[in-house]
């Protein structure tokens, strides 16, 4: 079974060919291409960095004390170091582009600069840690801390997504990598929020759908759940919205998010 000749080539001077050729020659603007290239690069870098950090943690825990583990850990550290440098560079570039473009969401709807800085420095942030469902960030003393919700809701404890790794792992998670990963998360969430704000609710849900896979640290999980809940509610999917609202409250959401979640759940 052979395909027929394409109309655009079959009759070069017909109206059909003219239209098809015009359609085939349309291209997106260079600005759009540039934007997507940057977004894709930083997403890939962030995902890779997260995966390497995760695997390095496992590897170092499994091989601790063994003579051969030293070289493995050093190798992982070297890889993570270069990824971190790449991630930081990407984040800085994206931040600059973003600042120049001036197309961000209203300030009130973004994670605060203080929250970002605190998370990056792994310093206490009572407001932020109330909504976290994560164990504390590994610190220099590196004592394992259980992933219990009650502990996490407590104020004045930094966050982390992985169980606290051994001391050797900490050297492969430099502070600037955390900052770059958080910057990538912020951009990701901003896109979902933008879709919600312009009324593209289904698109917002689709946009936020891969969040947990892309960002294992899930530092903005409550914000993502909130945006999903709002999108579902406005799409008329009350059941899903209620499920998300319950999840949100269980995470210890406060302020506007909690109020909205309670409203969704009803009396």
């Amino acid at each position, binding site marked *: 079974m052979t395909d027929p000749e394409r109309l655009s080539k079959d009759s070069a001077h017909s109206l059909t060919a003219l239209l098809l050729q*015009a*359609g085939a020659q349309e291209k997106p603007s260079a600005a*759009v291409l540039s934007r997507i290239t940057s977004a894709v*690069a930083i*997403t*890939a870098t962030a995902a890779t960095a997260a995966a390497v950090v995760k695997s390095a943690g496992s590897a170092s825990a499994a091989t601790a004390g063994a003579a051969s583990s030293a070289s493995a850990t050093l190798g992982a550290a070297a890889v993570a170091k270069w990824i971190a440098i790449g991630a930081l560079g990407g984040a800085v570039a994206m931040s600059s582009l973003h600042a120049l473009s001036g197309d961000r969401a209203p300030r009130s709807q973004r994670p605060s600069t203080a929250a970002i800085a605190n998370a990056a420095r792994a310093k206490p942030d009572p407001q932020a840690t109330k909504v976290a469902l994560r164990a504390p960030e590994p610190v220099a003393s590196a004592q394992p801390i259980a992933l219990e919700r009650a502990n996490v809701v407590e104020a004045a404890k930094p966050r982390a997504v992985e169980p606290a790794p051994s001391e050797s792992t900490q050297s492969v998670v430099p502070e600037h990598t955390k900052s770059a990963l958080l910057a990538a998360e912020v951009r990701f969430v901003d896109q979902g929020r933008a*879709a919600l704000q312009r009324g*593209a609710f289904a698109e917002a849900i689709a946009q936020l759908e*891969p969040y947990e896979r892309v960002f294992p640290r899930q530092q903005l999980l409550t914000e993502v759940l909130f945006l999903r809940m709002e999108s579902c509610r406005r799409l008329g999917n009350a059941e899903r919205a209620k499920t998300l609202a319950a999840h949100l409250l269980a995470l210890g959401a406060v302020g506007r998010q909690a109020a909205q979640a309670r409203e969704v759940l009803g009396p």
Partner: protein
Amino acid sequence: MRQPALRLVEPEEGAGSTPADAMRVLVRSHFDGVWRLLRRLGLPRADADDAAQQVFILACTRLSTIQSGSERAFLYGCALKFAAKWRASQKKPVQPTATGELDGIDDVPSLEELVDQNRARALLDVVLKSMPSELRTVFVLFELEEFSSHEIAGLLGIPRGTAASRLRRARDDFAKRLSRIESQLRFRGTVA
């Protein structure tokens, strides 16, 4: 101009590269095509920009699960799904007309004006918009994006014979609708 079917990542660029590099190659090779497909399936420019970005972000998150050699199929498949979602999200979905009557015919440019490619694309979109979506999808994939009927069958999950049959019907449908427009344009030119 466009990549041959299923020749996705240039070996010299894709081999041994990082995920970020692989994604850059994918964007460079397929972004235009994915975006163009979304446009021809009815998305306005701004929505096509956003949807194309989502397609590639999605590919980014699933890069490790995409089989080598099927990247193009994955990207275009995602684009088709996004376009379907977009159509479903429209409050007043476009209904194809059985008679071939074309909405917006008054806005269609004259034959002389068609030398302008933008106007030609506008007319193309008017005709495509009036077609049933299943025919339109097959037509766009074959005629504009140069997929083979075999590839279209794989992409849409239909038998090859069905894809070929849809393509025949789509070409007939397109030709009929366009000839109606052409005659109307000639008539308009005569009156003018």
